[in-house]
């Protein structure tokens, strides 16, 4: 399977990239790591007239942390993100989730921006960015705008990005003290897309009361699914009964598809079991005993 004919541009700056996007409009398509787009070209699921390759736009490849948070340039390779010492230390949820993306060879090329822009319904990063309350920065020749992660993925393989917009970076806020995390995934084989994956964050106060808890599932529908934990976990010291109730809420929140990989019923079961495991671990890591 060979890709269809396309014309090729390789801008070296954000400025040039934005101009190329404005010039070609819907005929142009950005090429980042190519780990999703090139298979789609080869299978003729996408036929852009022009590929705008951003691999030489080195200003988009960076990871920067300060007291307020972490900024990740769109062209940061997934493998570079998960190996970044500051990410491993301060945002272990992000590092752990990224480790579940395909195989090393995929992550050597695949980018953070590409994963978010592609928005595969079983992808790890869009779900984790939602759990982390991240904010995406996008820009075009008309200017720049910020999109909260919760508004970024709008439907199956569809984001809030306009065809002429470039995803520049994603910002992840620093986590409050006494915040525990967990990432749980079940896939058919290591490196396969998730059947279901769950990201959890739990924050406790000094007395052990849960002040914030976030749970996001992926692989269970067209977009990542956040679960509202205000009725179950938030506001009290976590108990096994509260965790079980939160896991039930997770199962109730999803309406997963049946496909060749797994029936809906099994995915619903996984949603509950993985939510329970993830919340239990996150509570432990936050310093609570559950």
């Amino acid at each position: 399977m060979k890709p269809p004919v396309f014309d090729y541009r390789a801008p070296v700056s954000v400025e040039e990239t934005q101009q190329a996007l404005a010039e070609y409009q819907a005929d142009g398509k950005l090429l980042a790591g190519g780990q999703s787009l090139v298979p789609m070209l080869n299978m003729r699921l996408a036929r852009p007239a022009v590929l705008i390759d951003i691999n030489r736009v080195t200003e988009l490849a960076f990871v920067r942390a300060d007291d307020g948070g972490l900024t990740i340039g769109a062209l940061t390779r997934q493998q570079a993100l998960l190996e970044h010492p500051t990410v491993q230390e301060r945002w272990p949820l992000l590092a752990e989730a990224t480790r579940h993306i395909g195989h090393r060879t995929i992550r050597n090329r695949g980018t953070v921006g590409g994963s978010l822009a592609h928005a595969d319904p079983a992808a790890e990063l869009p779900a984790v960015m939602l759990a982390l309350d991240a904010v995406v920065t996008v820009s075009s020749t008309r200017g720049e705008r910020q999109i909260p992660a919760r508004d970024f993925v709008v439907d199956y393989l569809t984001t809030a990005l306009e065809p002429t917009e470039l995803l520049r970076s994603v910002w992840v806020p620093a986590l409050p003290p006494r915040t525990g995390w967990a990432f749980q995934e079940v896939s058919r084989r290591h490196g396969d897309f998730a059947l279901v994956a769950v990201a959890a964050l739990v924050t406790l106060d000094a007395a052990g009361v849960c002040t914030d808890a976030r749970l996001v599932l992926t692989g269970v529908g067209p977009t990542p699914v956040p679960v509202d934990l205000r009725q179950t976990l938030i506001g009290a010291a976590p108990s096994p009964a509260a965790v079980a109730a939160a896991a039930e809420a997770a199962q109730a929140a999803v309406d997963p598809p049946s496909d060749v990989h797994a029936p809906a019923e099994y995915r619903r079961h996984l949603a509950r079991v993985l939510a329970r495991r993830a919340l239990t671990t996150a509570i432990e890591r936050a310093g609570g005993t559950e």
Partner: protein
Amino acid sequence: MVEKRPVTVTVNGQVRQAEVEPRRTLADFLREDLNLPGTHLGCEHGVCGNCTVLLDGQSVRACLMFAVQADGHEILTVEGLVAPNGDLHPLQEAFWEHHALQCGFCTPAMLLTAYEYLQQHPVPGSDEEIREAIGGVLCRCTGYQNIVTAIRAAATKLTAAGPAPASRSVAD
């Protein structure tokens, strides 16, 4: 008709130049234009890993890259593992000695994936970790057991031989 682009790539230590259409994949470029058929093509959509080569020392799927994107970069293919005098690389020897191949179709990709892994982990971790490292390459014959054994054996040979695998450059 889309105009061809000049590309200059260092492949197995040699500078190679050609004119290619943008749609030419790196895999086809290596196989057809540079006459290096050691890079195998299975699925041509990123799933089987058999087209794995090293780009600036990092494994990549050559069916998911275009030759134009490799312009200015360094590529190592399986042909580049053999020493100029024809001696097999210790990994190749270990694959041979430990029966780590049957039909051999996945072998170039396995060798290069293992090469990258041993660069980063001269002393390999558990069998589980080695399996994770090679998990991106599908083998339809061996059941992987002997591949894991061979990688471990090659690591022992390479570390005993003095210079760590990292010192073996693309060109040697």
